[in-house]
């Protein structure tokens, strides 16, 4: 039976995904709307199907479509079909492991981080797309596969491993020498958090895991839009070639600051709730993991502010003649506003998602 309040939330999330998915340049991809429509329909099928095999197969097709622009995704697509097959043959533990592996692989957990780094640097919008369609997979995993004894058994180990990877990725954001470097490492930090959240759901924190995944997708989606905005205007050089653009592009600066802060637990946004839930969920799995995650979140916050100061602030760069470029265009502003609105709505009233999510997932 469909839970209508959750369904309505998914429809809202789905429209946001359409906005996130529809980021191709119309000149380079004339069929972008068709591609977006196909992806969106498949996402709906994956989210609302009550047959796990159909849902996993839909995810497989989505991943296959993504693999056209990101070749590293084809093993994940095949594995999705494999997971569906395994579940059909009632090898539930193997299906659970396959599904968890796909989440980690697509999120960019070490040792698969190189693929995600390459994608975030080469085409941030493609990374946003593949993150947006990772949400239904997380939902399916939490709903159908994460109730097995194996999930409880691997939870403490996965939390600890995830915490170390999160901490190391957060440290790498601190040492990043370019905006791309920062964004790719921030993506990996969130991937580590997702790994922990999904693992912690094995101990009964399903709602928290879904909330963390949605927040990650939204805040990184917003951040990617801003990173793409900077790249279109200034190119993707090191920090030494950046700076001083805040007065020329104030909206881009505000957007970057907001989404960066939302990703590191800005109060009043879903990021704060997600971090809070995650920490409480992690404690029962690993105290050390909790401490490392708090440290990682703190380091990422510092790195976000440092990146902002190096990219947007400082002496104005007149020699770049940046004044010929416009600030965020209307479409990007609407996209950023919609994502920001959702983050704030979930930050002030998290129960609109958590209530039905807990009902269904637990």
């Amino acid at each position, binding site marked *: 039976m469909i839970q209508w309040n959750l369904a309505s939330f998914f429809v809202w999330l789905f429209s946001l995904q359409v906005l996130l998915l529809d980021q191709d340049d119309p000149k380079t991809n004339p069929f972008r709307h068709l591609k977006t429509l196909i992806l969106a329909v498949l996402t709906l099928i994956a989210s609302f199907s009550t047959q796990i095999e159909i849902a996993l197969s839909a995810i497989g097709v989505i991943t296959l479509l993504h693999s056209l622009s990101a070749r590293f995704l084809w093993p994940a697509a095949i594995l999705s079909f494999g997971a569906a097959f395994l579940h059909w043959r009632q090898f539930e533990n193997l299906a659970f492991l396959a599904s968890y592996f796909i989440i980690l692989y697509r999120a960019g957990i070490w040792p698969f981080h190189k693929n995600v780094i*390459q994608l975030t*640097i080469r085409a941030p919008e493609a990374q946003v797309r593949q993150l947006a369609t990772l949400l239904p997979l997380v939902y399916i995993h939490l709903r159908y596969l994460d109730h097995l004894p194996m999930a409880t058994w691997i939870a403490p180990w996965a939390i600890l491993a995830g915490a170390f990877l999160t901490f190391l990725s957060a440290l790498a954001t*601190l040492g990043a020498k370019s905006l791309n470097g920062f964004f790719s490492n921030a993506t990996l930090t969130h991937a580590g958090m997702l790994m922990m959240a999904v693992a912690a759901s094995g101990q009964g924190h399903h709602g928290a895991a879904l909330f963390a995944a949605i927040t990650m997708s939204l805040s990184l989606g917003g951040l990617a839009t801003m990173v793409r905005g900077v790249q279109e205007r200034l190119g993707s050089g090191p920090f030494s070639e950046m700076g001083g653009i805040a007065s020329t592009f104030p909206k881009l600066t505000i957007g970057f600051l907001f989404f960066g802060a939302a990703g590191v637990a800005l109060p009043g946004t879903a990021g*704060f709730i997600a971090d809070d*839930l995650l920490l*409480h*969920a992690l404690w029962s799995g690993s105290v050390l993991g909790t401490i490392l995650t708090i440290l990682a979140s703190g*380091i990422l916050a510092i790195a976000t502010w440092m990146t902002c100061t190096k990219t947007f*602030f400082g002496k104005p760069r007149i020699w770049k003649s940046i004044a010929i470029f416009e600030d965020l265009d209307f479409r990007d502003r609407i996209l950023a506003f919609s994502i920001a609105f959702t983050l704030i709505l979930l930050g002030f009233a998290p129960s609109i998602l958590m209530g039905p999510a807990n009902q269904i997932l637990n």
Partner: protein
Amino acid sequence: MTYTPLLVWTAILAPILSSQIFGTWVFLAPRTPSEKVVSTFSLIGLGLSAISNTILALGLSKNHLPLDLNFGPWLESGTYRILLLIRVDELSAAFAFLAAILTWMIAHFSRTYLHKDSGYIRYFYLLGLFASGAQLVAYAGTLDLMFAGWETIGIASTLFIGFFHERQEPLRSSIRALVTYRICDLGFLLGTVATHEWLGTTEISALKGVQTLPILQGSIISALFLLSAAGKCALFPFSGWLARAMEGPTPSSALFYGGISIHVGLFLLLRAWPDLDVYPSIKILGIALGFLTSFYATSVANVLSDTKGKLAHATLAQVGLIFAEIAAGWTTLAIIHLMSHAFLRVWQYLRAPNILHDVHRTGAKTNQMRSLLREKFAKLDLFLYSMSLHRWRVDEIFDILLSPLIRFSRWISQPQSRIKL
């Protein structure tokens, strides 16, 4: 009072909502609003907060306090739930009133002080953000809610320090402040999670249960909150960021480092300390930290030549004393000290730009007794002077401690920059 919930929510939400209105306007509309529109919206929001707090403070009956307003669970996940719990008592009403009145006065003062400044809209937006954060800290009935306000204040403080973003120095100072805040937030967050796990809830009133915990667990919770408060108050050895925080606009320095932000850590202690004050070792640590900070700040304030730096350290000296008072259990004295100190310092900070004029008018005075002592203890005096001049090298020690982490972060990010596209 029947209207207490409405008044409390107005006090908390009005400033941020008014800021959000013109913030959304700026982001979506092609033209930015005028200074008058921005300041009017901001003053309405802050004014509503101040009025609500005044009515609340005047209408509260001591017989009905403390008043816990429970609005049900804010969120639930598994066994974990955060209650939307507001606590109204003499302490929260006094601190919220202080914060609301001072913020409104500063906003009113800033209308002309920041006239034609390129960051005018940003300034008033941040003021609204800060005001809501301060109100949330004051009225929070759970540690999670208090942390939300606590972090909001920290973010607003960081952005105010880096307000003049065309120069590098304010940006560097804001990073230093943020690093200190995040180190100390570790204490608050861990303390909150530990409280939930060991006491079963994050309600502030549940901290009474610390006395029933084994000594190790109780000491850990107390020490974590002490660390958190110490960082927010810029206590020694976390004092390095305070002098640098003066890079922001003078009215915001007055509000943050003279009035409210610097005292928020003390508020946390006033809220929690009566329940945490069960271990003599933690008590002694708190008193020692307070006195050490007071000594440090007095010595530095005596040798500094810039007015705002002097004022910052003079403030810190008093904050150290208040910290020691709370740790010693003299909470009533500490509340009176805190309130009067906040008002005095805000006034002094706002007068700081006029100091040259004042000195010319009144003339500088020398202290003959101090000169005599200096002659007698020349070596000690020289040592103290040079150490104070370098602010006891707290920044350098901080940098040395953090440098391995920074080096490691650079090393770890190197392989990624070599990844082929």
